[in-house]
């Protein structure tokens, strides 16, 4: 086995992924019109190109959201064991939250929370 199995796996993987695309291309009935080319086939037709500038505020909000999302995820396992470990765990989570809070303060200072 060994390398033969790996090579077989690779071939199967490519065949599985590529086969579906090729089969659907070969078997499906083709019909082309403008509406079919739209990303969303409902609502009003879109105007302009998709290469427009988005306001950087969206990204900043997403980043800040991500930070606190991860903080909460981290606090779940902490909440399970906090009683067993006691004060040490409490001190550690305070330090952890303090670190993230500094990040929020920094974002605040830079005006990331202001919607322009």
């Amino acid at each position, binding site marked *: 086995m*060994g*390398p033969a199995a*790996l090579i077989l796996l690779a071939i199967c993987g490519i065949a599985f992924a590529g086969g579906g695309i090729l089969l659907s291309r070969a078997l499906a009935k083709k019909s082309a019109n403008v509406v079919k080319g739209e990303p969303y086939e409902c609502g009003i037709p879109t105007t302009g190109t998709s290469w427009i500038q988005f306001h950087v505020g969206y990204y900043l909000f997403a980043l800040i959201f991500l930070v606190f999302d991860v903080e909460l995820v981290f606090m779940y396992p902490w909440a399970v064991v906090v009683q067993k470990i006691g004060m040490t765990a409490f001190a550690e989570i305070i330090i952890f939250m303090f670190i993230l809070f*500094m990040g929020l*303060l*920094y974002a605040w*200072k830079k005006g990331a929370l202001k919607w322009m």
Partner: protein
Amino acid sequence: MSIDFLILMKSEMSLTLIIFILLSLKVFTNDKNHVALLNLTNILLAANFVFGFFFNASGELFNGMFHTNNVIALEKNILNLGTLIVSLQAFDWLKNHKHLLEFYVLLLTTLLGMDFMISSGNFLMFFLGLELSSIPLAALANLDLEKRKSSEAAMKMILSSAFASCITLFGISLLYGTTGTLNFAEMPKHLTGSELQLFSFIFIFTGFAFKLSAVPFHLWTADVYEGAPVPVTSYLSVISKGSIVFIFISVLFTLFRSFEGMWYNMLYLTIVLTITIGNLFAIRQNNIKRFLAFSSIAQVGYILLGLSSGTGAGATSAIYFLIVYTFSNLGAFGVIALVSAHAGKEEITDYKGFYANNPTLSWVLTISLFSLAGIPPTAGFFGKMFLVTAGAGKGNYVLVTIAVMNMVVSLYYYLRIVRSIFMDKNETPIAKLKGSNSIKLALAVCMIGVVVTGFATGLFENINTLIGK
């Protein structure tokens, strides 16, 4: 437990503290007085470097996730020293930069990541450290905000290093699948040398080779070095590479010791390619940062030559060479940083007739380049000599001959710059540059280092005894 914890993780603790001081300064003050801030940061970094020599202990934490000993403490000190020199050299560039504190927060975060990576005793910790040390570097490469090339460098770096991280992670996952552990101490028992394990080793090796910019994984290096601001480039070429070499030593020598027959052959091929291609491409560069990028690729080849011996002498010579390399490469980069910050020139042709107005800086650059080339009175000669001697220990004289012949080739391109500094005529040579005291101090430290580390024979012995135990 709590006191142990503080002493074993002291270098990480002190770095975290410095990062917090700087971040609080950013949040709670209006950081208008740049000179004072820069001086404060440099003093903090100097204190951190000095503090690195005291209270060093050996031990492990978190079930072997984190371990430290005297060799690791020495390695961290080398990185601290390098960061201090880079910070001193960045003074002239940062003085007028809007995002001064962000630069330091990001820079020290990468240093923190490197410390964790060197101290890691587990692949998870290693990977976290690796990522912490590489993601902020891409942001640092983008810090010349007005230049398009800087953004290009950051983009190339983040995309290619993400790809390399994926490959490393895939290798780690295969290794976990076959051994059932991620712990460095336990893993060697389970390494049987099955095909899947060899496969995973190749992937992990690739990740390291990418970060070291060894050929054939070097393609990102020249573009990133050219686009990034000079202090970031020097940080990338010395500190970032140094940290990877340190962890590579322990991964090869302790973890994958049973695969030595295999990694020797892989290193053999990598060394020949790295040294030859690094040298050949360095010859035809016109931008001085691109030139130093290829020169640093070739230097990595020599470091790997020392590692290929697989002995304690090899590890010692690699660590010793990195100390020498820190001084000599940062000496060269210091002059380039000064010229770039004051005159804004980065082409090799701009350096024609440099001696006319800046004799002292010309000598600093020349001595640094001599040391990189390995010309005898400088420390670079001793560093290369130990590396080649260690590499010859295996009895593979073909490899050693290729390496030594390439050293002769490298003389050509280092001396080409020296020639244009001293001999070439130029209508409009670079005017007399007035560097700040901080950059002068950094260059003086580098020059003393280049001369002294070569003759301080005790240094090599000291490292050897540290590793030998």
